[in-house]
């Protein structure tokens, strides 16, 4: 039963990932007084891309086509780390947040290499900027997770989530506040949303992720876009799991099993609307202000860890 639930929740995360993007785009359109495309549009895009040919630049090596596959594979594997419906996951017990963060790093590393294999300036430009953002985002992300892991006395994702579930929401330690702040900032940077990166831009001066994938087309692009959507969904699910897991099925009763997906979808929707509001109300930061943005995340994460020592 538990194993089935583990598999279902991982597949659920992978399956609804494009929908999250669709919802964000739709809400953004509404805020901007447009009608916007259907929330199912990302699925149609993926389907269209999967039917097309794969265009490969003549200078590229085999790595160019391998990179999207690896990115997709590791991102989906990482999704199996996240407790979604109940405080446990396929790799939730054996795998921990360190492995999770570094699995995502595999995908990013290969995408950077794939981008540079295209042989144009855009790929290198995107990879260079991605290197900047990820070099500064990884430490705060890990430190924030370290602080909640210290409170939970375990490093596994399921253990951390379980420890939060068991607490009274009103009696949470202040450490969670700092960690949440740090992780939200990092999540914005990691998933390439405004104000760090604009997912809708095609202007050289501003693009990070879009510059990296400029040479990709067809099924390869579909894999990258899907993987990216999964990454967004899994980071949102991680935020939900670590900081607001209440509503997860802690028993296998029918009521709990019905409530859990509803609660999760509700929380995801709230986060999606929040992203849309932030993206509509803020301008993208200048490239060299991003380090300050992530510096703030680092400061919050360091405070979170320091407070675990001070407040025990």
């Amino acid at each position, binding site marked *: 039963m538990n194993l089935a639930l583990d598999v279902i929740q991982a597949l659920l995360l992978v399956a609804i990932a494009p929908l999250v993007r669709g919802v964000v785009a739709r809400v953004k359109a509404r805020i901007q007084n447009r009608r916007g495309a259907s929330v199912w549009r990302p699925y149609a895009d993926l389907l269209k891309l999967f039917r097309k040919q794969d265009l490969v*630049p003549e200078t590229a090596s*085999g790595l160019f086509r391998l990179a999207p596959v690896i990115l997709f594979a590791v991102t989906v594997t990482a999704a199996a780390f996240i407790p979604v419906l109940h405080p446990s996951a396929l790799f939730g017990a*054996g795998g921990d947040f360190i*492995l999770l963060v*570094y699995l995502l*790093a595999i995908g990013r590393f290969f995408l950077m290499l794939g981008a540079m294999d295209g042989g144009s300036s855009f790929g290198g430009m995107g990879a260079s900027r991605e*290197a900047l953002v990820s070099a500064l985002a990884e430490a705060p992300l*890990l430190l924030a997770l370290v602080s909640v892991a210290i409170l939970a006395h375990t490093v596994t994702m399921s253990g951390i989530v379980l420890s939060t579930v068991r607490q009274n929401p009103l009696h949470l330690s202040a450490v969670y506040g700092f960690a949440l702040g740090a992780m939200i900032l990092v999540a914005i940077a990691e998933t390439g949303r405004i104000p760090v990166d604009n997912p809708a831009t095609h202007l050289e001066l501003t693009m990070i992720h879009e510059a990296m994938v400029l040479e990709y087309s067809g099924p390869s692009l579909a894999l990258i876009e899907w993987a990216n959507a999964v990454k967004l969904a899994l980071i949102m699910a991680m935020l939900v799991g670590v900081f607001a897991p209440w509503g997860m099925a802690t028993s296998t009763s029918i009521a709990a099993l019905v409530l859990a997906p509803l609660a999760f979808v509700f929380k995801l929707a709230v986060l999606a609307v929040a992203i849309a509001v932030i993206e509509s109300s803020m301008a993208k930061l200048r490239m060299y202000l991003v380090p300050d943005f992530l510096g703030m995340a680092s400061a919050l994460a360091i405070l979170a860890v320091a407070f*675990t*020592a001070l407040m025990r």
Partner: protein
Amino acid sequence: MVQLAFNSFLTVLLLLPAAILLCRRSSRTRALPSLLFLLALLVGTFVAGMSFWRGDRLALDLSWLTLFPFAFAVDRLSAFFLLIICAVGAPVALFSIPYVERHYSGTKADWMWALLSLFLLSMSLVVTASTAFAFLFGWELMTLFSAGLIVIDGDSERRRHNIFIYLVMMHAGAAAVFASFLLFLPHAPGLDFVSIRAAAATMPAGLRTAVFLLFFVGFGTKAGIVPFHLWLPKAHPIAPSPVSALMSAVMLKTAIYGFVRFAFDFFGGGPAWWGYLIMLAGAVTGVLGILYALTEHDLKRLLAYSSVENIGIIYLGLGAALVFMANNSPAWAMVALVAALLHALNHSLFKSLLFLGAGAVSDATHTLDIELLGGLLKRMRVTGTVFLIGCCSIIGLPLFNGFVGEWLMFRSFIAGSELPGIASAAILPLMAGVLALIGAIAAACFAKLYGVAFLGRPRSIAAEHATEVATAMQAAMAVLAAACVTIGLMPGIVLSPLTAMAQELLHSSGLPEAEIPIAHTLPFIAACIAVLVIAVTGFRRIKRITPTWACGLPTLSSRMQYSSAAFSKPLRKVFARAYKPDRTVEVLYANEPYFPQSIVYRSVRTTSFEKSLYRPAVDAIVGMAARLRRLQTGNVQVYLLYIFLALIALLVFMRFV
């Protein structure tokens, strides 16, 4: 049997120069010494492996040969480092066979093989010595033989300067190591390791501290701890590639061995500030090492700086182990120590792989400047693939070996939160952030290296016409790459003997539940990723080759690609304070002020340590020497007076003591 193999391993390495002399006459037997060398290293690997995995103890006493006690003993710790030397030495020897054939002939080739053999012998002496004399003997020879190997490639003014710096710093470090041994003398009956160990327990605290500081500086110089790292990026890149591989991957580890032997075996840990000092040194070394590596465009210099970074990571683990020991938490001290030693093994595997890869690249293209490379993966498939494995390993991606050591280190840092005292409970977990920062910058650095050198379009004619290197070279690199992946997927094979070794060293039993799960999870993760990769690859069969999109321009040239300097610019800008670049812009105006004829832009990273630390020290020493020179007047009467005064002084001294 193992003892016999050990003896013959040492004998063959020692006698190899003689064999070379004998075999050089005939062209038929010329290849014999190199094969013998390879065989000896394989035997050494077997000996070290038996001793490391089964715990066999070996001993060899050669005191009858010398005036001083000169003996060797192999316990698990020695065996582990002997394993590093031989297991890395064997592929490097295999790589060297075509390398030497291609680059050297006649006497130079003979010198190369003879010195390689003696260099490996001296390193084996260091890690197996069981007396101070044997240790220091090997320690000195190691420096000299490696310097000799560098000289083989020529001794131009610039190279001599670099070798000089190397030798001076190594001897300064060796002096500190000498002194740390000699300080034991009043308390130990002899300078064999058994009596040193006994003496260390009874020494007064002040003396213990003095010895600690001395061996920290002495071994730190050899390991390349900032600010003693100056020689590393000077000496490693100018050596022949197999020698750079040995120096970076193996020789630095002898310093780690010395440190572990002193700090853990002799002293059994110390006060907590020892650990914090080591961790601080490790953190500074790690961060600065990788930041310096990021700016390099020379393949070997980049790798040398990355060695500095990895030594920093190892020291972080060693420091954490000392902190845990000082806080009576031996179980976690074991995890941190195992993490540090595992990282030492991993680093020697992937760094030798990368240095050999650099050698292959320079053989194929005649340059090490990555701004002149590009597109090599298409032209050198095997080299490109194994180099990618090396890059993945060095930045600590899961499923490769680098990750396992770093994971254990993260785990022990997090466990630091349970230590008593606010300082230790906050500092250790914060070190996880430092380690993450180092890892993330390393990822950027190696993405740059691989992307610029191996991917995209070639940036020079040489790179465009590069062809794959000799089969033996490919095989040597493939062996190392296979070792990286094997440890990455099944870390248990080295974790269990390492744990046994740490138990012996720290006299503790039992491990915290922590270190186990990763070894079991990794194969599942790998299987999951493999299944997904195979499943997804099936989706896209049709592929069409097209030109890269050029914004409507007719063609793209290789100069339009992002260069290595451009790639690292954003990070260099963010960390400008660490670099202190010296920028000069020279604009030459012809007639009109608005249209310059030429613009020259130079940006040099000043090694601020050279300017603010070494220059004043050297100036002070030279100044003092100049002042002392006044004593030497050249007048015989004055010298007679000196002798007379010395005699009086001695008499007075003898009267009152």
